[in-house]
């Protein structure tokens, strides 16, 4: 009986993962198709990748995206960690208020958030571009840093903190020498997640992009609306490889640190 359900379970799980990854794999596969249509397979080629590197619009929007993503994850790492650490000290009521406010950007649908920021920045006369992109992206990134760092903080033995304070360390010293090193891996993971989320955002970026500062996903979206072209496949595949490279690198960093201990 148990054996039978186990086999059925494994089958279901395998089928699920095949369907989960089939769309992704077909994007990668067709980026190497010599024919420009998915109707037929006419052999392998790297032409679509070559075309990408000579496309100046893509290069420009890629630069915008990278700058925005790096600035967003730096800002979010600082603000999110600050919020998480501060929420340990404030009164219980303030702590609940902070918790509520941190999930606010995550529960308002992204279109509504994007439109509201569009109206607001427009009224302020702020130029749309890197600044508005970073500010709006940090809105959905900070909460994730806050949550991940706070989860780690809860695991920290309170007596370490108390003994540091008893031995005469100032609060600032204690935060710098004890709390920050302990939560550093969480901050790193969260910052990478921010990087990925910022690089991937379409909805809010559509409203925040300026005339010469379109982000890569906004540009890709406009390319996709025209239909299926192998060039889009090649671009998506490259982005995917880049993302996996970053994740792999971060895994390596955190593993090495563990061994160093």
């Amino acid at each position, binding site marked *: 009986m148990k054996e039978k359900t186990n086999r059925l379970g494994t089958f279901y799980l395998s089928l699920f993962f095949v369907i989960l990854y089939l769309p992704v794999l077909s994007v990668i596969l067709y980026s190497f198709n010599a024919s420009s249509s998915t109707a037929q397979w006419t052999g392998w080629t790297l032409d679509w990748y070559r075309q990408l590197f000579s496309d100046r619009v893509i290069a420009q929007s890629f630069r915008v995206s990278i700058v925005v993503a790096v600035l967003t994850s730096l800002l979010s790492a600082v603000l999110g960690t600050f919020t998480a650490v501060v929420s340990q000290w404030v009164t219980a009521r303030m702590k609940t208020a902070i918790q509520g*406010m941190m999930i606010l950007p995550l529960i308002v649908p992204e279109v509504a958030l994007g439109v509201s920021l569009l109206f607001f920045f427009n009224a302020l006369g702020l130029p749309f571009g890197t600044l508005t992109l970073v500010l709006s992206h940090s809105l959905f990134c900070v909460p994730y840093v806050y949550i991940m760092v706070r989860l780690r903080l809860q695991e920290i033995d309170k007596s370490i903190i108390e003994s540091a304070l008893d031995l005469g360390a100032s609060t600032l010293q204690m935060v710098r020498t004890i709390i920050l090193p302990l939560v550093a891996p969480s901050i790193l993971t969260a910052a990478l997640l921010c990087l990925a989320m910022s690089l991937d955002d379409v909805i809010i970026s559509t409203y925040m992009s300026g005339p010469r500062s379109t982000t890569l996903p906004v540009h890709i979206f406009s390319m996709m609306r025209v239909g299926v072209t192998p060039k889009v496949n090649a671009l998506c595949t490259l982005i995917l490889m880049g993302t996996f490279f970053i994740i792999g690198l971060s895994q390596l960093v955190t593993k090495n640190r563990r061994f160093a201990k």
Partner: protein
Amino acid sequence: MRTLKRNLLAVPILVWIGLLVGVPMIFVVVLSFLSRDNLGNIIYQFTLDNYRRVVDPIYLRVFWNSLLLALLTALITLVVGYPVAYITANLSPTRRALSLGLIMLPFWISSLLRTYGWMILLGNAGLINNVLMALKLIDKPLPMMYKFGTSLVGTAYMLMPFMIVAVFNSVDKLDRSLLEASYDLGASRWKTFFQITIPLTLPGIAGGFTLVFIPALGLYFVSDLLGGGNTVFLGNLIHTMATRGRNRPLAAAFSLGMIALALLVLSLYWKVSKDKTGEGLFQ
């Protein structure tokens, strides 16, 4: 005095959220009561016209489309994702880690790429049609793109990991001895599942439902690419009104309608899970 000083530390956070969420939301509320001229410029004159249009039968239809899409998305992700979460929670440690990794990996893959993948699979010249034609099962391509169902498949696919992770967390916390007690007392596997497992994992189900329902209301790029605009959803409408349509007051009124729908689902979540701040949703 000391508590006051400690709370002062929270001021930067309050200012940040207030400026980027609070104030813009006030703008949306004010804007939703204003009019505009033919060029799309805002006229500072109070009107209820935008709300009159929100409840116009034509636009109510858009609300209905979005509600249906979000509800069906949540339902599909639950029915497909619950077994995945349940089976994964019962695997041996190594296989469990592998399965969890495969479930979480899509979070890192571009959502545009994942939507585009379905365009390649479902198109008239797409992979599925090619395979079916090569097998001589059909002689002309099945039209699968640009339908309500296509948007539904894409949206459910996009949000599936959220549901699985939410359910997994509560299945994982399940006290196994309760299940054994149920078997010992003679209950069948199905009876145990529906009377013990489901009620005990209800907070996870409610959390997953909320996490899937709210974004499903607004993922307009999925319905745009896969649905081709044949069915108009709230997200597409707000997007068009705010940009090309040049009707910001109306976009504001519809945004508030969308937020109201999201809050409705959130209040249901609060009732079921007793998670006061909603923070439990994101852990």
